């Protein structure tokens, strides 16, 4: 009995000693005092030094896209640092191209603000805002995919281009002890400025998807920030080839909703890839879109159907569908959203059909 007490007490005491030592070190050695952050040679902020540039910017309500929450694994939070960034770290180089290295582009989650710093960020990031939203509806699209409708606070609105994404904050909950931001494309039309709809699939052990699928309920509050992204609707008359798999349907829905509410008359074909008939969803919605839009066809492609399913649509993957059904790639443009292998194979099929690569817009996840 006494040995249990002695062990507990001595471990606590020694741990506490180290903790005190580290706290003192953090206050003295780790304290870089106040430094000045200059953005675009225009805005100046006085900030506490010592944290990463990404979190310093978030403190100042400037939101740089970051999917991994500052762990240095997604490579999205790139920022041009003109002065005061220190040398490039080995943790950043895998995400950088030669050109970016030459232009002093850095991963803002890896750079620490230790001295006066001068950075350059795209103006549109100042348009990014954080919203305290309310869950208004949750709809099960399939067993593993939900569509959520969020209402922005009264009087606030979000201005985005169809195809862009927002970041949803996964808060602390039982089983999750870190706050992370995850990116989800907006599915609703940008003309609906008071609402945001997201399509979110369940990933086993995913921090944000577990939060959405198992914890979030109608009426709950959630935090999103946005909009971000350079994947969006291009205003011209070319015929559109849209391709998506799974939750990649979201930005395409936004595009279609936008075209419907604006009454845009463009030929559009949407190839949607899934495995079995049970992975398909919103079929009535697309049927309605086919009727409402002047020239739109929804083409579901199933890769794993047997005779017993009675499937009379396209059998195979989306790139096979394009190989077979797309007549000519020239004069058209493509919008792709899905996983990397799908995007790569579809880009290959499209370029073989003669579509120039700069007219293929995609969003990989």
């Amino acid at each position, binding site marked *: 009995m006494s040995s249990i007490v*002695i*062990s507990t007490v*001595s471990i606590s005491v020694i741990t506490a000693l180290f903790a005190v030592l*580290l706290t003192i*070190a953090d206050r003295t*050695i780790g304290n870089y005092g106040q430094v000045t952050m200059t953005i675009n040679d225009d805005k100046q902020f006085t900030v506490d030094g010592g944290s990463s540039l990404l979190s310093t910017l978030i403190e100042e309500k400037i939101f740089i896209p970051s999917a991994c929450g500052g762990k240095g694994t997604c490579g999205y939070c790139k920022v041009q640092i003109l002065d005061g960034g220190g040398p490039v770290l080995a943790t950043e180089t895998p995400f950088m191209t030669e050109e970016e290295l030459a232009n002093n582009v850095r991963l803002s989650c890896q750079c620490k603000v230790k001295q006066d710093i001068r950075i350059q960020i795209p103006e549109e990031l100042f348009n990014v805002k954080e919203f305290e939203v309310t869950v208004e509806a949750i709809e099960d699209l399939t067993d593993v995919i939900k569509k959520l409708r969020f209402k922005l606070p009264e009087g606030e609105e979000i201005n985005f281009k169809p195809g862009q994404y927002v970041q949803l904050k996964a808060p602390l909950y039982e089983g999750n002890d870190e706050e992370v931001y995850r990116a989800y494309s907006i599915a609703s039309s940008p003309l609906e400025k008071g609402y945001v709809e997201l399509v979110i699939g369940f990933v086993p052990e995913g921090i944000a998807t577990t939060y959405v699928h198992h914890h979030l309920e109608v009426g709950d509050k959630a935090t999103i920030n946005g909009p971000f992204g350079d994947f969006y609707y291009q205003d011209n008359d070319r015929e559109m080839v849209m391709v998506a798999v799974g939750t990649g349907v979201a930005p395409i829905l936004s595009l279609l909703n936008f075209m419907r509410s604006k009454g845009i008359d463009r030929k559009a074909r949407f190839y949607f890839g899934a495995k079995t008939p049970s992975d398909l969803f919103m079929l009535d919605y697309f049927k309605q879109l086919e009727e409402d839009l002047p020239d739109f066809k929804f083409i579901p492609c199933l890769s794993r159907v047997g005779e017993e399913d009675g499937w009379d649509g396209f059998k195979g993957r989306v790139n096979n569908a394009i190989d077979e059904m797309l007549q000519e790639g020239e004069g058209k443009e493509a919008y792709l959203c899905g996983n990397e292998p799908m995007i790569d194979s579809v880009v290959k099929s499209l370029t073989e059909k003669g579509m120039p690569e700069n007219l293929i817009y995609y969003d990989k996840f």
Partner: protein
Amino acid sequence: MIELNPFVIFIAAIFTNNMILSNFLGMCSFVAVSKEINTSLGLGQAVTFVLAGTSIINYLVYHYLLLPYNLEFLRFIIFIISIAAFVQLIEMILERYIPNLYYALGIFLPLITVNCAILGVSLFMVIRDYTFLQSFGFAVGSGLGWTLAIVALAGIRQKLKRASVPKGLEGPGITLIVTGLMALAFIGFSGIVQIS
């Protein structure tokens, strides 16, 4: 037990009792960070540095805190805590005062906290009843031995890039086989000195 000269222990820790190639400790970072000679040299230096520091701290903690109160059974957990605290502290100090060293070693420091070779050295030195100097020699020797092994492996792996490795063995698979062959080669040193 014969009283061993600390220098003998130092040499033995590099060659005959190499942490990786005879004890197979510290394998995770050994396999993960051995793709480039420069990077592995940086990691090796960081390991040596941390080993030297933690052997001193853990020696003092063990002999002046744990032994007098008959708490030596707590050494596992206490050593882990002190290693973690030491690494954290060193990282802060380097970042603030020796930035160049921080950029060379600092990014590896968090990896080292969980390197079992570090804990292994601290445990061996108390199990084998080393004196202070013996412990220090053992720690520095082990660190250099670890560095030697990882740099050698990185050299081999850089050459391996041009070899045609069977598909299923690419990456860690072939690395472990190479490590095994290196361990066989290191048996050749075993006639020099033996410390355990």
